[in-house]
């Protein structure tokens, strides 16, 4: 009898103990889900297109997704920060002394169109002067931090080589003739007769996925998103939007996740952009091979269209407070390029998944931005070329690019990393992704945001800067494969 009872007790307590082992198992399963690199969206071991896992159908909208306020217009060449800074840079460092311009010469001595621009925005000119000063200091600082960040710098340079190939190795080629010629070059075959525009869209998306795109959407090209004042292959000129730029195929990839989380220093803008070049070049060739016109638009060097609003129109996501298109899958870790084409395509609809409303409450990117470039306004309240949205002070942003601990100005991207939407595709984050847009009360987003702000750790904005203002902080630690101390025989005096 006694033996019978103890056996029963043994089974009872043993079985109950197995519950504790199961709890430990849950901890292991959770930990592995967090570590699992195949949950890095866009890098999964899945079939083509599975990275675009969020079902957009229930969130498609016919409502306007851009808040139009009065007359709208195209963006001028000089309104792009890279264009106007390039123009200024050429003047400041001109080889011909008599053509040189110095800040002391004043705005009046600048040539058009940048003269008018700076007359209207004199603060942008002083910010650029500060930015150039910071760039000089950045080169000096680099000597002190070079050993620590040498691998990250080399990794970024390797990716950049696909963008700035100095030996004719650039792919795809830059246009050298007007779009009416260039976009049709080499077309030998008759236009492939698609059964319907829907078939054409579906095929093009599959092909784009097969070339490595994580997300693909299609939209009619809104002419307001086309730059004015310079056309690749033609030069500086006013131009009408070419008639064959009817549709835009818009596609996105993420940055490598672990280096992105270690912005501003370990990450690179070029890993995603070089990938986009490959996808764009191949898709361009494919489209022309089936008889249609194609023209890739690939930031940060080769484009005539403003990519973010195009991506919003194509249903990839919504515009965030940080000026980046936030997509349900990739969050702010979304880099985008487009191809304009004359294939008759079926466009996608824009989506509303509550990102705008979340941004109204969140402001994490504004809090952590080391330049103060991101607006703290509760609602978008700046009218930019007839569209109401949050304004990013790009000039201030660039100054930080020229300040952080990198060898040269190659970006910051802290606002991508800290965004609560930039989360991997594992069970907890995907649960949040799916629940929040379906919650009409906003309770889910309020709870998520409360957890985000009280549980997660963010360095103070100034900590991303070098001494004496900060400590060269990165959002997360650099991945071990980019940490010099793991691989190189250095003195390690930075530890």
């Amino acid at each position, binding site marked *: 009898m006694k033996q019978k009872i103890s056996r*029963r007790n043994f*089974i*009872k*307590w*043993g*079985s*109950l*103990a*197995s*519950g504790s*082992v*199961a*709890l430990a*198992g*849950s*901890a*292991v*399963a*959770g*930990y*592995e*889900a*967090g*570590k*699992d690199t*195949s949950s890095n969206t866009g890098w999964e071991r899945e079939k083509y297109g599975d990275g675009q896992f969020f079902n957009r159908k229930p969130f498609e909208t016919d409502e306007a997704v851009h808040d139009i306020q009065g007359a709208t217009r195209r963006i001028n060449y000089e309104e792009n920060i890279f264009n106007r800074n390039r123009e200024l840079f050429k003047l400041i460092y001109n080889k011909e002394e008599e053509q040189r311009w110095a800040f002391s010469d004043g705005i009046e001595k600048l040539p058009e169109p940048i003269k008018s621009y700076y007359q209207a925005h004199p603060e942008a000119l002083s910010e650029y002067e500060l930015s150039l000063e910071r760039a000089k200091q950045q080169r000096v600082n680099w000597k002190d931090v070079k050993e620590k960040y040498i691998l990250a710098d080399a990794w970024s340079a390797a990716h950049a080589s696909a963008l700035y190939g100095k030996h004719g190795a650039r792919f795809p080629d830059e246009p050298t003739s007007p779009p009416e010629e260039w976009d049709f070059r080499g077309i030998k075959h008759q236009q492939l007769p698609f059964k319907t525009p829907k078939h054409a869209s579906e095929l093009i998306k599959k092909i784009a996925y097969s070339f490595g795109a994580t997300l693909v959407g299609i939209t009619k090209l809104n002419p307001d998103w086309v730059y004015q004042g310079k056309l690749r292959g033609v030069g500086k000129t006013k131009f009408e939007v070419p008639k064959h730029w009817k549709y835009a195929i818009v596609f996105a990839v993420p940055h490598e996740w672990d280096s992105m*989380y270690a912005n501003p220093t370990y990450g690179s803008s070029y890993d995603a952009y070089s990938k986009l070049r490959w996808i764009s070049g191949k898709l361009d060739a494919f489209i022309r091979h089936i008889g249609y016109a194609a023209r890739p638009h690939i930031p940060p060097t080769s484009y005539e269209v403003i990519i973010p609003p195009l991506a919003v129109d194509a249903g990839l996501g919504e515009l965030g407070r940080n000026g980046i298109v936030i997509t349900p899958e990739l969050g702010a870790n979304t880099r985008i390029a487009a191809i304009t084409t004359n294939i008759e395509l079926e466009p996608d609809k824009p989506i509303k998944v509550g990102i705008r409303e979340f941004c109204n409450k969140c402001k994490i990117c504004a809090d952590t931005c080391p330049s103060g470039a991101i607006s703290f306004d509760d609602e978008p309240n700046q009218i930019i070329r007839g569209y109401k949205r949050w304004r990013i002070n790009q000039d201030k942003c660039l100054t930080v690019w020229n300040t952080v601990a990198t060898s040269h100005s190659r970006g910051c991207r802290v606002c991508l990393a800290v965004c609560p939407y930039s989360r*991997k595709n*594992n*069970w*907890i984050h995907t649960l949040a992704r799916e629940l929040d847009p379906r919650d009409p009360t906003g309770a889910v987003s309020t709870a998520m945001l409360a*957890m985000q702000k*009280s*549980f*997660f*750790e963010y360095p103070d904005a100034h900590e991303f800067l070098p001494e004496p203002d900060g400590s060269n902080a990165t959002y*997360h*630690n650099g991945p071990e494969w980019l940490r010099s101390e793991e691989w190189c025989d250095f003195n390690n005096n930075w530890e």
Partner: protein
Amino acid sequence: MLLQSTIFGPLFWMLQGILLFTFVIGLHYYFKDKNIELTIPKWLLIITYWLTINLTIAAGFTLIGEDESRAGIYFLGFFSVTLIIIGVVLRRFILKVK
């Protein structure tokens, strides 16, 4: 990665299933020995509570696995306290309500 391993991944989940099953058997004997009758709703509450504990632990450790250790630990701390309070209320309910 253990769970990505072709051999250990499926074995791990089988083991988890077995452990959960034996745990339920253990609970059955435990309540029987205490002369507490478990109705179906009570069983459902207990299992739901148990799964919630598992999910909470898994979620906390997912954050830790993602290098968000502070968030993981705070998450576990906050929800452990919440779950302990719920557990105490649940125990009273199970013992008191016939």
